[in-house]
Structures are given as structure tokens and as C-alpha cells.
């Protein structure tokens, strides 16, 4: 990686941006990318889009891009899909719903495989979002994998969390369970051309009435495929950001994100590196020499302290 690529990326070159994202995705040293400009990060509105598989997340994202582009702003998207826990391969299919924006030079879409992370995002989604922020995208849409009830990484990594459900997503008991629903800033009931949308709305309203938060999460009904309700959804997203800024909550969000990022780096310095080719060789050699595993770990740890980056 060189500074010339970084400059081209900052000037808006998609190819340079994409290459740097690959570099970051592979856990390499971000110092070269951000230099002493970390303070430039934090201007973008990071919008998390989450919900169960098949709720329409990618379609909603595609329609939101249209709304953002209507205001004249550039827009970046990070769309996550799961890596196989068996083969580590991934089928990244979110793009198929976003074809309207493929040739728009003001839109940058990147798919990310979760690479073993269980929280609904890839381990490096946050730093990739930092980088897109750094490149000057004022709006960054972050789409999670299809989630269940506890994949809530997106809550700490974004400013506004939109939870998308469908009329079939469950009854009032499902709505009262813990997890994702607690993290929602906005609810979007999608596919309301199907029966059950009103019941779902009533169940949600009941569930939300039981919680006490400053911000009462609005419920927006959409039929994303036909663009119905999307501009209302985007209005609510912007309102939420205004609320965060007005009530000084944005800063708390940023600090929370900062903490979780430091956790990420500490972990990445310490864990999960035994299978790196260099280390693998060393470990296999140590096995042959009957070196105790704790001694090997200590040596690896010492080396890591000297050079934490991969």
C-alpha cells in the first residue's frame, strides 16, 4: 500500500478505494491509510440496516440509496453476507438487489463476508466504514447478514439502526424478547402488501410502550419493491440523527464505537493467528521438537508485541 493510492482514494477513485478496503479487510496496518488524519473521521451518518433473512434489507438499502442520491449526496454501502463456518467461502448476493446503482459514480457498494464473526457484521466492517467516512461519503449504509435475535454488533457500529421485519415476523411475545429489538432506533415493517402488517404494528407499538427511552422508535410501513414508504423511512432516519445531535447523544455513540474498536484491535493482536502460514510452520516445528504449547504461545506473544500488525 502506498500514499499515492490513498490520495487517489480520497479524491474519489473507486478502484483505489476498493484496493484499500481489501487491505483493511485483511487486517493490515491501518496507520499507512489514515496517517495523522484520524480526526477527519466522524462526519458520515452511519445507518445500520438489519433484520431477519428475507425481510428485504438489500431492497430497502437500494431504495434508500435512491433517496440519498436525490439530495445530491454521495452514498456508500457495506453489505455483509455470512462466510461458511465449514469452508470459509461466502456467497455475496446483496448486490443483486442494488443493480439500479451499479453505474452511478456517486455510489460505492462493497460486499463483505463475515469471516467467522458472529455479531452480524464482518470483523472489519467498522474500519471499512471509517475509511469510507474518511473518503468523504456523507452517508454510509451498513447492511448486516440476516440476523436472529442477538446479533447486535450493528448497534455499536452505527448512528442509526433500522430493524426491518415483515408481517410474518412473529407475535407480541417475539416482540417482547430481548436483543435486536432493543437496539432499534426505527422499525420498518416491510412487505405490508401481505396480510398481518397492522397486527404486527399493534404488537410492536405495545412492546415499545413497555420500554422507556428518550427516543421513541417510530414504526414505518413500507413495500420496498415498489418504493412505497421509503421517503418516510429516510425522513425518520434523518430525524433520528438530528435527535442524536440535539441531545448530545451522538458523542456517546462515537465513544461507544471507539471502545469497541479498541477491543477489536486488542483481540486481533492477540487471538486467532495460530494458522497464519508463518506461525503454522513455527508451530509445526515446535510440535516436532516437543516444545510445550505455553512456551510456543509465549514466544508468539512476545513477537506480536514487537510487531502487532500481520
Amino acid at each position, binding site marked *: 500500500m502506498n500514499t499515492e493510492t490513498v490520495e487517489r482514494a480520497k479524491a474519489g477513485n*473507486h*478502484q483505489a*478505494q*476498493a*484496493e484499500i*478496503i*481489501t487491505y483493511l479487510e*485483511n487486517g493490515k496496518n491501518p496507520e499507512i491509510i489514515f496517517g495523522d488524519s484520524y480526526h477527519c473521521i466522524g462526519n458520515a451518518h452511519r445507518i445500520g440496516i438489519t433484520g431477519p433473512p428475507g425481510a428485504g434489507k438489500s431492497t430497502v438499502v437500494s431504495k434508500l440509496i435512491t433517496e440519498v442520491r436525490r439530495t445530491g449526496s454521495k452514498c456508500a454501502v457495506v453489505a455483509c453476507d455470512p*462466510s*461458511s463456518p465449514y*469452508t*470459509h*467461502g*461466502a*456467497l*455475496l*448476493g446483496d*448486490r*443483486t*438487489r442494488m*443493480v439500479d446503482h*451499479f*453505474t452511478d459514480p456517486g455510489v*460505492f*457498494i*462493497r*460486499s463483505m*463476508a463475515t*469471516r467467522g464473526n458472529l455479531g452480524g457484521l464482518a470483523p472489519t466492517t467498522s474500519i471499512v466504514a471509517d475509511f469510507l467516512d474518511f473518503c468523504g461519503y456523507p452517508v454510509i449504509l451498513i447492511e448486516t447478514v440476516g440476523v436472529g435475535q442477538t446479533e447486535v454488533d450493528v448497534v455499536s457500529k452505527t448512528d442509526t439502526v433500522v430493524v426491518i421485519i415483515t408481517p410474518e415476523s412473529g407475535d407480541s411475545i417475539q416482540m417482547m424478547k430481548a436483543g435486536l429489538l432493543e437496539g432499534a432506533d426505527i422499525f420498518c415493517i416491510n412487505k405490508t402488501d401481505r396480510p398481518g402488517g397492522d397486527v404486527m404494528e399493534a404488537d410492536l407499538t405495545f412492546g415499545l410502550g413497555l420500554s422507556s427511552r428518550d427516543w421513541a422508535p417510530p414504526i414505518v410501513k413500507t413495500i420496498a419493491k415498489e418504493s412505497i414508504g421509503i421517503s418516510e423511512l429516510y425522513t425518520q432516519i434523518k430525524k433520528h440523527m438530528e435527535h442524536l445531535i440535539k441531545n448530545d447523544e451522538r458523542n456517546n455513540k462515537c465513544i461507544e464505537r471507539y471502545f469497541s474498536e479498541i477491543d477489536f484491535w486488542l483481540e486481533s493482536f492477540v487471538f486467532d493467528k495460530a494458522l497464519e502460514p508463518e506461525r503454522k510452520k513455527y508451530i509445526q516445528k515446535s510440535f516436532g521438537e516437543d516444545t510445550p504449547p505455553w512456551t510456543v504461545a509465549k514466544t508468539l506473544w512476545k513477537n506480536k508485541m514487537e510487531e502487532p500488525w500481520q
Partner: protein
Amino acid sequence: MAIKVIIAKPGLDGHDRGAKVIAQALRNAGMEVVYTGLHQTPEMIIRAAIQEDVDVIGVSILSGAHMSIVPRIIEKMKENGIWGKPLFVGGIIPADDAEELKKIGVSAVFGPGTPTSKVVEFINSVVKDKK
């Protein structure tokens, strides 16, 4: 570092079974596969390939339009400075056309009945620096 591949369906035919079988096989071989969906123009495919920073581009064509579509994809790759990334084509491609496509720079052409392992092998052999 996983190998990243884009599998695209350019043109008007809607026969995506082959593309999906290949995408699945590559996924099962541990690759990260971006699938674009149907009816892509060469411009759309190359934009996506750039933003995703893929190592290999694969296109599936069963409409018979390969001799007009593939050269346009190559042209777009050159225009955008990514010519040099391996490009492979799958689908119903007559042998003469396959030879022609290879002459203009296509790395491999896979017809019906190709074992998926052969495609995996091909990609592993052209993307050496990742493994």
C-alpha cells in the same frame, strides 16, 4: 486471505442455473463469490468488479451473444485499467468461438458438463499470490 471472484450474467438470457452452480462450487472451495444477478451490461459488471476488488471475473452466457458481449467486457476492463485480471467465460460456446475468445485474452472457456472442480483448479492456478 480468501480468493474473491465475481460471477456475472451479462446480456438478455435468463438461464442462471449454470452461474449459480459455479458460484456455489467456488463458495464450497472457500472462495468469496460476488453474484451480480441477471441482465448485466459490461459496464455494470466492470463497475462491480472494481468496487469489489475481485481477483477473477467469470461471466456466464447462454444466449449466443458471447462474440459481441465478451469483447465489450474486455474493452471496459482495458478502459478501467483492470485488464490483466483473469477473465473466464462459461456457457454454450462453440469450439471455434472459444478459440477466438482465447485469442483476444479470455483465460479459459468452460462448456456444459465441465466438472466444477476444474473451474476451482483453474482459479487456484491463476490466483497464486493469495494462498
